Structure formats: C-alpha cells, structure tokens
C-alpha cells in the first residue's frame, strides 16, 4: 500500500514536471522543473530496487548535466520568449494544434505502451519474483560492468573524452589573432 502511494506520487510529479518543462516560457524554470522530474524518477528507481542507479541519476543528471544546462542558460542570458510573439506562435495556444497535437501525443502514448506490453506477463508485480537477487549489490554491478561489458565501458570512456574535447573546441571564441 505505501508502495502504491509513492509510485503514484512520484509518477504524478514526473509527468507534471515534464509537461511544465515543455510549456514554460523561461528556460531557467524549465531546467529547474526538469531537475524536479529527475528527482521523481530517482524515487521510482529506488522503488525498482536500483539504489545505485537512483543515486547515479541524481549525481550525473541532476547534479552535473543540469548544472551545465543552467550555466549555458545563464551565460547566453537566454531571453524569456517575448510575450506577443509567444501568444502568436506558442504551439499549445493554438486551437488546431492543441486538438490534433494532443490527439497525436495520446496516440503515441497508446502505441508505445502497447508495443512495450507485448511482454506476455506484464501484469505481474515487479519485484515479486527473485527477491534474493534484489539486494543487489553494487559489487555485482561493478563485477558485471568490468567483466562482461568491458568493451562498452572502455568505448564509453573514450566517447566522453572525445565529447569533452569537442565541447571545449566548439564553444571556444574565435579570436582574430
């Protein structure tokens, strides 16, 4: 019972914050609402017996990637979208778009959900079986990453290095000298 309450609470927070993210005028507010959404997802991961992923979500996504977004928003002094322009071009404020757009989004949700639920036993409560392995251990995760998935791990670290160098080069000011 408390699990159901926390699930619905976190799910409502995640969906609500995400809808507000795409509907906000001010990009600063969008970033902060997305952080709230990530917090809710982190709670859901804890419910799914993945505490390390939950904490990694906060450290990596909410603590690092979002700080990067925040810095860029502040650096560019990203303008709040202009009032009149906003009302004229804002997609969610136009009748046709609102009707058809919402219909399309709903259709997308139904299609995705039905594709995902091609699993035959989708009604089984998650966590009901194999409770022995549920106390995971970060040690098992580590062992698996460094033995079975070593290649992916090394490739990802090279990817991050390339991205880091690329980001610095791309954002550099072109000096005349």
């Amino acid at each position, binding site marked *: 019972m408390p699990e159901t309450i926390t699930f619905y609470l976190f799910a409502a927070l995640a969906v609500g914050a995400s809808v507000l993210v795409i509907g906000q005028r001010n990009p600063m507010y969008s*970033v902060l609402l997305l952080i709230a959404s990530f917090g809710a997802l982190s709670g859901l991961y804890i419910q799914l017996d*993945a505490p390390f992923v939950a904490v990694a979500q906060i450290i990596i996504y909410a603590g690092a990637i979002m700080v990067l977004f925040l810095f860029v928003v502040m650096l560019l002094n990203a303008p709040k979208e202009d009032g009149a322009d906003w009302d004229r*071009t804002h997609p969610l404020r136009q009748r046709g778009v609102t009707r058809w757009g919402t219909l399309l989004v709903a259709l997308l949700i139904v299609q995705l959900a039905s594709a995902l639920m091609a699993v035959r036993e989708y009604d089984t409560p998650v966590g009901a079986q*194999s409770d022995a392995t549920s106390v995971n251990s970060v040690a098992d*995760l580590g062992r698996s*990453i460094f033995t079975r998935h070593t290649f992916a791990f090394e490739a*990802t670290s090279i990817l991050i290095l390339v991205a880091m160098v690329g980001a610095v080069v791309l954002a550099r000011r072109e000096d005349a000298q």
Partner: protein
Amino acid sequence: MIPLSHYLILSATLFAIGAAGVFLRKNLITILLSVEIMLNAVNLTFVAFGRFAGDLDGQIITFFVMTVAAAEAAVGLALVIALFRHRESLNPDAFTSLKW
C-alpha cells in the same frame, strides 16, 4: 507491488511528452531538455524490465545511456553556444538559410 504495466505506461507517457517538446518548442535549449526527458523515459523502461527479469542488465545499460546523454548534452550545448554567438537567437527558425 506495482505491476510492470504501470511503469511501462509511465515511461511511454514521458517519452511522448519529450517527443512533443522536441517537435513543438522553438527554443534550442528546451529542445535539448526534451531530448533528456526522452532519454530518462528509456532509462526507466530499462530498469523496470531489468527488475522484471530479475537481473542487473537493465541497470548496466542505464549507466551507458546516462553517460552517452551527458556527452550528448555537453556537445549539444557547445553547439548552441556557438550558434548563439553567430546569430544572437535561440530560435531554430533563425538558422534556415540553407533551406530552399
């Protein structure tokens, strides 16, 4: 205990919201944020299925997705900064000079 279908419907909803954001918003940063929403929805699906199957592979894939998302956000934002310096606007419609 929450049935798996609840988690799947939730992640489908988040994915659709993210996709709507990418298509509908006219601000480069908000588009990148919507892409992050989609990546998170996918992470949730992986972890839910991983728990359903009783093994750790779902969580492992999540790390790689998070890492790639971080790399993509960094490079994407660097591009946004470079574009903004060029054109002083974050509206993707300002960058259509190659459109015929």
